[in-house]
């Protein structure tokens, strides 16, 4: 399965934007154009119909190698074997969804200000949406958060974030310049007469910005590494600081870096580097 960290372009369904064309047809075009993660968002459909759509999209995304996320409904996500669920601020809390979905499925959260982003990250979200960057027809009631929140998120958020809300080829570069490295679009893709081409153009901007930013430096600063099998970004400079971030510094745990146990006495001297693989294993003490 694809990892959320690899995903760059997120497309969210909105059937009201493509009357006369089928959901699957439009989403398939978006994926072919470069969307690598797909969300089923449908506030109207009864659950039985929603499940039918989810199952169809699951089949499509599996075939084309994209991640598949269900908006709002962990039960539908589970029933359709989706890769995860996306939650709004008024939906189930991350922890509750996590309990239902388990550690391996993806939980994403919409955020509209930095405290929400920090809270979502702390609660264990795998990614967040940052927006709406621009006024949008999908969420007309919500004021745009502007590019300043994108910049804040780029500095402070370590999990992947997708800038969302009114993003289209005409403004994508502004959003990327503000610090986003991942974009999410709804109407700009699914409402386009040529969803595949719209996706391809957005994808092209993302990749150009990625190419031009200094190699190995993630947009949000910090170091990319894998901790207990999960990719993460840290601002920790040493293993001790990393352990503190995971609230393990004062617990009896065994730390392993790139296949070798690191003596606890040396945690403060061992640097954390890009692409390190770190494992924290609790000490097993019974006899």
């Amino acid at each position, binding site marked *: 399965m694809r990892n959320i960290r690899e995903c760059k372009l997120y497309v969210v369904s909105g059937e009201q934007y493509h009357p006369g064309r089928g959901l699957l047809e439009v989403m398939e075009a978006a994926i072919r154009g470069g969307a690598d993660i797909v969300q089923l968002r449908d506030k109207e459909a009864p659950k039985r119909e929603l499940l039918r759509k989810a199952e169809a999209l699951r089949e499509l995304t599996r075939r084309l190698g994209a991640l598949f996320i269900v908006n709002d409904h962990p039960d539908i996500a589970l029933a359709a074997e989706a890769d995860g669920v996306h939650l709004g601020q008024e939906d189930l809390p991350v922890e509750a969804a996590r309990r239902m979905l388990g550690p391996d499925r993806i939980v994403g959260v919409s955020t509209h200000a930095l405290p929400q982003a920090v809270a979502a990250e702390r609660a264990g979200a795998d990614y967040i949406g940052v927006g709406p960057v621009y006024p949008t027809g999908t969420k007309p009631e919500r004021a745009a958060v502007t590019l300043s929140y994108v910049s804040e998120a780029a500095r402070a958020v370590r999990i992947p974030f997708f800038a969302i809300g009114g993003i289209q080829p005409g403004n994508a570069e502004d959003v990327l310049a503000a610090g986003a490295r991942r974009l999410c679009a709804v109407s700009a893709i699914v409402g386009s007469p040529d969803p595949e081409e719209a996706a391809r153009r957005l994808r092209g901007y993302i990749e150009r910005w990625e190419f031009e930013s200094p190699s190995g430096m993630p947009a949000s600063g910090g170091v990319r590494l894998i901790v207990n099998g999960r990719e993460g970004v840290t601002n920790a400079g040493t293993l001790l600081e990393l352990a503190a971030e995971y609230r393990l510094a004062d617990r009896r745990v*065994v730390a392993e870096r790139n296949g070798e146990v690191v003596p606890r*006495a040396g945690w403060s001297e061992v640097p954390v580097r890009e692409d390190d693989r770190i494992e924290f294993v609790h000490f097993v003490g019974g*006899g």
Partner: protein
Amino acid sequence: MSEAAPGLARYARQTRFAPIGIAGQARLAASRVLIVGVGALGAALAEQMVRAGAGEVRLVDRDYVEPSNLQRQALFDEEDARQALPKAVAAAAKLRRINGSVRVEAHVADVTALNAGALVAGVDLALDGTDNAACRLALSDACFRQGVPLLYGGVSGSEGASAAFVPGRTACFRCLLGGEEAPESERNCETAGVIYPAVAFVAALQAAEALKWLSGNGEALRRSWLTADVWTFAVRESRMPAGRAGCPFCGREAGAVTDPVERERACGDDPAGIAPLEAVVLCGRDTIQVTTGRPLSPGELGETLRRRGCRILASNAFLVRALAPEEIRLTAFADGRVLVQGAEADAGRAIEACRRYLADPEEGCPVPAETSAGVGKTEGGNGDA
């Protein structure tokens, strides 16, 4: 040939295993092993060492057999639990019946910085069957001072872990896991339970390394920290690091002590570690261990306890076990320790009960009134996971 004779015939399957062979068996027969903690892991380790034909097996445990041990502590039976025999003593009796050619020494004691050096002195290998970090730290320090490898094993729930701490090769337990200041792991036999397959798995890992070391195959020791879960079935290994420069135990300059005078000193125990009175909460039961700091006579104490209204539950050469009127159970060992159950893990109540029921009318209280030292520290007991 005689079954009990220390002849080679009983080891035929083992000597036929090429890496051991006749020469390895002879080395085994000349070896001495220390097993600290004779609970689940310790009992399984002791049985394997005795069946394999180690020359001498030295057992140390501070606890006695209870019915709740029988689910996973393979050397004990219901009769041992009924008699409340000390685990080291009950195990030694079984082990002598299993292989009469092995010298089995039983010590009913707590392993601390005070006595670890003397217990390690003269052994070729130490096997860890304890269930708490304090014991392991004392043991690791003593082992590294004397150049004796320590084979760590730990179990909890369906998980286990094992590694060889080898002086001159690897870091010591203290460097790897931190000293006394780090808290006990929150998962223990009390919170996570433990199943026998996890115990058997880890004991097998430790025993395999022990056989290598004792039969002269030390170069084949596994150099990894291994963690496993027998329920989900997952095994994970990571390399063991070398000793840490500057560590007095595993640093390069530390090394094994070879000078006989120095070695004598190294084997000596640390008087700074003496705590005249300590009350610690043991793992696995509602049990507090109070250390009185002087030997007790189980026979005489039995009389005192009876006079003071206690019902004697068990009495043997090593301990006396009594039920006090307020439903507190006291188990007093000859080495001066008292295990107190039913005091709701309250160290103050435990000490109060010791003072009330165990005080010698002529000499006064065996438990001094000053009770601050170490009170309330949470520890495991040795070998009761």
